[in-house]
């Protein structure tokens, strides 16, 4: 899909969520859906398979998100899947998150962790990243078991990596 089309979808989703008054929640849920979509090949193939009828793909998406996400989020994902743009869902969501952050004068901070962070940890991490980057951040946490332990934060072009996986890789290189 072209960048223009991705931006168009992102704008549409953004305006729907904003009109619904659930932008912060939807943005966060869509972000997690996009990361799950990226990491799950079977889900990606199923929702992107053009040989499966659109209504069937939408049904699958709605069944998966039904109990875990808000109604708006589920409907937005269903909209993208039904229009045959599921493969570009991560790019659309990233664009939406970036736009939402810009609206709030924030920078998106994508943090990967092997385990979920508590609210207190998220708050302190947000404050720490804001301090180190010099601008307010919109924290997005991705649960990624491959990091093994520790965190890696990507804020714009800056990467702060203190994961066990990276340390192991460095150790392996030194060995």
């Amino acid at each position, binding site marked *: 899909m072209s960048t223009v089309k991705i931006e168009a979808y992102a704008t549409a989703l953004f305006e729907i969520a904003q009109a619904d008054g659930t932008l912060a929640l939807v943005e966060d849920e869509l972000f997690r859906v996009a990361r799950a979509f990226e990491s799950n090949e079977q889900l990606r193939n199923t929702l992107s398979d053009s040989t499966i009828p659109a209504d069937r793909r939408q049904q699958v998406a709605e069944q998966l998100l039904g109990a875990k996400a808000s109604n708006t989020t589920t409907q937005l994902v269903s909209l993208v899947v039904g229009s045959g743009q599921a493969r570009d869902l991560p790019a659309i969501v990233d664009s939406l998150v970036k736009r939402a952050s810009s609206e709030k004068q924030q920078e998106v901070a994508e943090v990967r962790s092997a*385990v979920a962070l508590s609210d207190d940890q998220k708050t302190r991490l947000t404050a720490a990243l804001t301090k*180190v980057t010099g601008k307010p951040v919109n924290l997005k946490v991705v649960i990624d078991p491959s990091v093994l332990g520790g*965190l890696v934060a990507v804020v714009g072009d800056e990467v*702060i990596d203190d994961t*066990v996986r990276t340390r192991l890789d460095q150790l392996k290189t030194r060995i």
Partner: protein
Amino acid sequence: MNRFVALLASEDPTITHHWLLPETAEIVYGGLASVIVIGALVKFAGPSIKKSFNARTEKIQKELDDAAGAKVTAESDAKNIRAALGDIAGERARMLADADTQATAVLTEGRVRITAEVAELEAKAEADLNSARGRSSDELRAEISLLASIATPAVVQATLNDQTKNELIESFISSVGAGR
């Protein structure tokens, strides 16, 4: 005739008048006969005898001259031979000296070459040893690295419990909050 016979008959031939000297007549007759014979010899045989003596003298002289010439030739040959012997001795000495020089040069060159070859072989052996040592070291290091790269993640994952993971997150937040 009768008288001559009578004379002969009257003398005893076994009896002489002197125990040493012949009879006078015999001396006379004998002397005459000798003169005649000698004269004949001188007249008829003398020239050939003289010629024979001259020829013999010439022959002897020639032989003497030939001998003198042969002596000179022999002396010259002897001189040449002595000179040749001297040359041979000198040539022999020169050849021996050359042979000694060449032998010394070959020996020296051989020693230098062998020394160089031995040094080269030693250096090569040393390099081979170092290379083999390095290879063994590299192989061992690679083996350790492989085992470590396999074992380390498994060991780390086994020791990473939730508490440790939480501590790592707290450490990250503190580190970033402190401005790294």
